[in-house]
């Protein structure tokens, strides 16, 4: 007998509204359906109504966790359109904040994963250590969450000697605390029983679904925009890409764990190599043209496309978030697993629903589904006419 277990749209394990419909026999999952569309905000449409400067503020708010990745990508793409290069110091500072953000994002995910397998003690401790990163981000940028650090042509705030010393001190603290956490994760037999061999995404499936970021790197796909297409100052830093073969939840966990170490290394290195100079280049006009930019957000490759028509308002901004690529790959991971593992498997791609929402049109007569951008939607069904 097959039963349907609904997980979501509102569910304790999911921090954001998404709907997982699981067809189960007993505890075993036979089919899975993932529905999005509970959280559409029309960001791309709003972006076409605002100036380039106002849009920084808007894209800061696409996602609360990787807000720096979004503005970095947006600012880089606009800089490409405007044909300016930010000063060296700004590039290193972008790396600094981006890597701090990666540490905080990965620790956040690790905590949530531990919570999902019921290890609340480790969850609390990981989040306690994450507070150090949040403090650093607040000291450097002025904000804990939406940092408002990037601007077109550079960054908004500089760091002084005192801050650099504090960052280095805190990095040591975080590294020491994290060492203990990792030891606990690697040695606990119950954790191993819960994550090893669970939710496997094979190399072939991963390629077929086109997954990005840590999800891809856990399935033997060596793809990292920081290496493949270096932006900011990543080509001047010494770091390694973490790739695992297994593709299970353990591999996805370990990729993130070792990336935290790499990020700590990069934060320290970017501060050591920090060149003197200005932190922002003036940008005055946006010539017609188009640009395509990508960065490695904590969840994977983030893509922005911007088309300029010479005014101070972009003609089109397209955002493709990493979760958009990753969420679909949950389906092959879920099949033949148990309900108990479903939230963990779903969380293992670190889905960021807020970033991902698209309008989905379902034709009930033919049961045809079509995904369209908000602009198309408005042209077809809304007030806007061609």
């Amino acid at each position, binding site marked *: 007998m097959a039963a349907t277990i609904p997980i979501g749209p509102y569910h304790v394990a999911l921090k954001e509204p998404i709907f997982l419909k699981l067809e189960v026999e007993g505890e075993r999952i036979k089919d899975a359906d993932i529905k999005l569309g509970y959280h559409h905000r029309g960001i791309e449409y709003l972006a076409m109504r605002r100036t380039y400067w106002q849009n920084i503020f808007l894209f800061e708010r696409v996602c609360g966790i990787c807000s720096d990745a979004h503005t970095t990508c947006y600012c880089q793409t606009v800089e490409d359109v405007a044909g300016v290069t930010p000063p060296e110091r700004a590039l290193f500072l972008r790396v600094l904040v981006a890597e701090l953000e990666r540490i905080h994002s990965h620790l956040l995910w690790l905590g949530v994963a531990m919570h999902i397998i019921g290890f609340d003690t480790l969850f609390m401790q990981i989040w306690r250590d994450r507070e150090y990163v949040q403090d650093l981000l607040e000291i450097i940028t002025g904000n804990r969450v939406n940092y408002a650090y990037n601007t077109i042509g550079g960054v908004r705030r500089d760091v002084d000697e005192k801050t650099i010393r504090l960052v280095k001190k805190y990095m040591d603290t975080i590294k020491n605390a994290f060492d203990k956490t990792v030891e606990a994760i690697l040695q*606990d037999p119950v954790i191993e029983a819960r994550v090893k061999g669970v939710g496997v995404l094979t190399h072939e499936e991963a390629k077929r679904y086109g997954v990005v970021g840590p999800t891809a790197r856990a399935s033997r796909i060596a793809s990292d925009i920081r290496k493949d297409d270096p932006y900011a100052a990543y080509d001047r830093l010494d770091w390694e890409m973490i790739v695992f073969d297994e593709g299970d939840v353990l591999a996805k966990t370990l990729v993130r764990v070792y990336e935290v170490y790499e990020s700590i290394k990069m934060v320290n290195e970017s501060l050591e190599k920090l060149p003197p100079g200005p932190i922002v280049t003036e940008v005055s006009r946006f010539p017609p043209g188009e640009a395509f930019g990508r960065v490695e957000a904590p969840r994977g490759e983030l893509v922005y496309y911007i088309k300029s028509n010479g005014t101070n308002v972009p003609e089109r901004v397209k955002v493709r978030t990493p979760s958009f690529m990753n969420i679909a790959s949950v389906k092959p991971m879920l099949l033949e697993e148990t309900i108990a593992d*479903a939230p963990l498997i779903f969380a293992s791609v670190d889905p960021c629903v807020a970033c991902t929402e698209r309008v989905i049109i379902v034709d009930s007569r033919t049961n045809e589904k079509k995904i369209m951008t908000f602009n198309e939607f408005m042209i077809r069904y809304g007030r806007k006419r061609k």
Partner: protein
Amino acid sequence: MTDVMEVILAIIYAALYPGGLFAFFMGAMFLWSYRKLRARMQSRVGPPWYQVFADIVKLFNKETIIPKVAHRTLFVLAPIIALTGCVTALWLLPIPAHVLPTAEPLVSPLAFWADIIVILYLLALIEVGEIVAGASSASPYGAVGASRRVNLLLSSELPFAVSIVGVVIFMKTLSVNEMMVKQAKEGPFLITSVEGLDPMLYVLSVVFRICLFISFLLCVLAKMGKRPFDIPEAECEILAGPLTEYSGKLLGLFEVTNALKWFVLPAFTVILFIGGDTSIITFLIKCFVIVLILAYIDIINPRYRIDQAYKFFMKVALLLSLVGLVGEMLVLYAVVGV
């Protein structure tokens, strides 16, 4: 006249001490100390000492919602079944009445020669209450929670019973009361010796008894619904499991049961394994130690999956209890030489 006195004493026994209010208060305190310890070990502040009472008072003042699709009778009956099992088991336990050690332990009015078997069933009744709750609530989360509870009950009951059999064989009695009296004379079960036992065999026998004790504690963890066996209430997967649809007074009854459980199960453990108290103070201290052990295991562990828990009980807990039981019997055989 004596009849009237006996009735009054029985009522006091059932409602005030040690059944009823006293047990509820102590259970709430144990539950609070678990929550506080857990919070402190997780770098949190934790609840104030009256939190459990505040929760229950709040729940009893709230509206009780019974889902239309639920089986109404069973839905209402489920918390009552659980509470009945818990309270009756409590009434059968010989809990010391005096503050200072005395010669005569308090005998429960309900006690009889084979009450340990009844207690075994009554403790299972608590879980049956939860299973009925989950199954009758017509919620998918409740149904999955109930099925997991059944699995856990089936797997943990066998090692639980085998451990108890180990104690019974050593004590040569089925009465919990007599066990308490015997331990008061000869020392706690875990470390007591039999006449004519040479030191080597004594150490071996204690090791076997510790096997029984560990297996028993693991089963108690499953009965309390604590990590790594809190699978029926895994909130990330199935919300509150069997209790998902419960609210108001019915949920309040479950909370009362839960608080009582925090006294009954540690007390039962103490009576079986490290008992022999005639003073309530040492008894409560021993209970608290058991609570601390349970809390510690809960804090340092994540949650097993249900199939893994089943395998764990069959492979580890059952094996431990069987080794303890058979070893204990062999040692006794060597001494008695039957």
